[in-house]
């Protein structure tokens, strides 16, 4: 098989509006604690663009650099080379408050040291808009209530966060991100602890939020079929290299996915032109990994 190529053409399903997020040859390296030592992990130059109302899924096996890419997008890490622009501004150069007004991040795990109620948690999303002791204004409360309502979580408002189920918690966490009124919504494996029904519901909500609130949404996920169903474009990473960027139908080739994931996979295309990944039984087919040199 020929080595996979970096597909840089714009996706087939174009969303509305101007380019909002622009990742230009951004790379990153985690040091081992000294400049002379070789880095422990590197993310090779990655490029893609996303418009408002567009949902981008970042895919790849474990330790492929997905979370690192998300940190570059969030501006919490500065690219070693290249840059990440949000509406023309470099995300890593923004001051923390400005960044929090434009970019909301939903982490893989959230741990709370002391009990808080759901509404208190959602109001934290208004933090970048306040000053001093940040006494919440009626407007902040209205925005927080609206965020909970948008996710159908109004009934959870007075419940303590540690007493609600995983799916409910995910909605409240997402509501806090909405309360930040961001342009760019980033989610790091939000489907991790959810059952299948809750996973579909979450992706459907993200799709709806992207449309209604004009967000650009970037989701890191392992769910290839959910990504195919809901994402406008996917970014496929493997061992710290960006292998392909494009619409799911362009990226999902059976031989290619089989080699990347080291499992025997087939791809079928539905009547709506959406690819479906099917796992085949039998021995793992990942004997030979794709050569990264494009």
């Amino acid at each position, binding site marked *: 098989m020929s080595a996979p190529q970096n597909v840089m053409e714009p996706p087939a399903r174009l969303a509305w509006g101007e380019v909002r997020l622009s990742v230009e040859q951004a790379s990153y390296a985690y040091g081992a604690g000294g400049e002379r030592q070789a880095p422990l992990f590197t993310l090779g130059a990655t490029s893609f663009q996303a418009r408002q109302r567009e949902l981008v899924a970042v895919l790849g096996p474990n330790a492929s650099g997905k979370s690192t890419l998300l940190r570059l997008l*969030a501006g919490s890490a500065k690219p070693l080379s290249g840059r990440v622009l949000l509406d023309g501004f470099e995300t890593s150069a923004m001051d*923390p*408050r400005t960044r929090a007004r434009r970019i909301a991040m939903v982490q893989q795990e959230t741990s709370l*040291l*002391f009990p808080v109620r759901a509404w208190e948690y959602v*109001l*934290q999303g208004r933090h*970048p808009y306040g000053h001093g002791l940040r006494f919440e204004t009626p407007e902040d409360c209205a925005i927080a209530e609206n965020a909970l309502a948008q996710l159908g979580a109004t009934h959870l408002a007075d419940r303590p966060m540690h007493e609600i189920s995983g799916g409910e918690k995910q909605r409240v966490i997402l509501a806090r991100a909405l309360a930040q009124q961001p342009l760019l919504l980033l989610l790091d494996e939000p489907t991790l602890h959810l059952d299948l029904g809750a996973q579909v519901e979450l992706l459907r909500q993200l799709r709806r939020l992207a449309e209604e609130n004009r967000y650009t949404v970037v989701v890191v996920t392992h769910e290839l079929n959910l990504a195919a169903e809901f994402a406008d474009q996917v970014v496929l990473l493997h061992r710290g290299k960006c292998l392909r960027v494009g619409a799911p139908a362009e990226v999902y080739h059976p031989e290619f996915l089989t080699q990347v994931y080291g499992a025997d996979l087939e791809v079928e295309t539905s009547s709506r032109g959406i690819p479906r990944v099917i796992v085949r039984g039998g021995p793992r087919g990942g004997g030979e990994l794709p050569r990264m040199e494009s």
Partner: protein
Amino acid sequence: MKPLTPKRLAWICGTLGGALLLVMAISLKFGATPVSLTELLVNLWRVAVGTIAEIPSEHQMFVFELRLPRILLGVLVGAALSVAGAGFQALLRNPLADPYVLGVSSGAALGAILSLILAANRPLAMPLAAFAGAAVTIAAVYFLGRRSGEIDSYTLLLGGIITASFLSGVIMFLMTTLSGRDLRGIAFWLMGDLSSPAPVAAGWLFAVLGLAIGAIYTTAADLNLLLSGEQEAMHLGVDVPRVKLVVYLGASVLTGLAVSVSGAIGYVGLLVPHVMRMLFGSDYRVLIPTSALGGAIVIVAADTLARTIVSPTQLPVGAMTAIAGAPTFLYLLRRRLP
């Protein structure tokens, strides 16, 4: 949805402030020499209207020269240790953090004793050395408590306890170099004691207390987010390195201040913030002022007990707080930590 308003904050603090004044008045009344309530109220009125000369000299000595300075010292130490505890809990993301448990008080005590040996006659040397001792210790414990880049609750606590025991060893060693008369005073002071004639009249102690608590309080809204982790706080717009520096320096100053005037009083920084969380919630905008007032109430009350329980013998107040604090620590350890 009932967010915190300045009015509600003022009500809570006003109520606790009233409770503190009440406890202080009760503490003025009780002691080895009892003072009748009427007598006390009449004399407090005389102080309020400025006719101090009418107060009987014996009464003035007991109430205003012996008890009142000690009570004010209790207010200072209680507020300082409780706010330091609340600060360390957020900074280290550990509900069991407390200046005493983490060995920070021992660090401050070591600094103070070194200053007594090396620079006995310099008035500012002791509090400065205590601050330096506290700051160095918390930095050491912070690094001891890290495992692969993350703060680990148990490693941090163990690191603190081992640091405290190491520092106690060094303190014992240094104490052998002191003469007998100093030795008894220092041994009593180490247990946590408010009876030493500290320069309470010096308003600068309260000024430093106010400055340090005020500095920590400016970060109160940020600390609420820091409790969910540094990354989360950063994504919500918190300038994490600045907040950590302010709380680290502020809490070290408060610990140094408390230890330099009263020795190592244990568990207040653990006990008080947890009680305040149970009463008023875990919002740091409420927790910091209520911890300051609650800490003052607890120490003044504990010291009143220490003065009266086996009167005329006086117990060190640290013994009282340890008796109440250690079981609380064990309760929280079993309940809170994963």
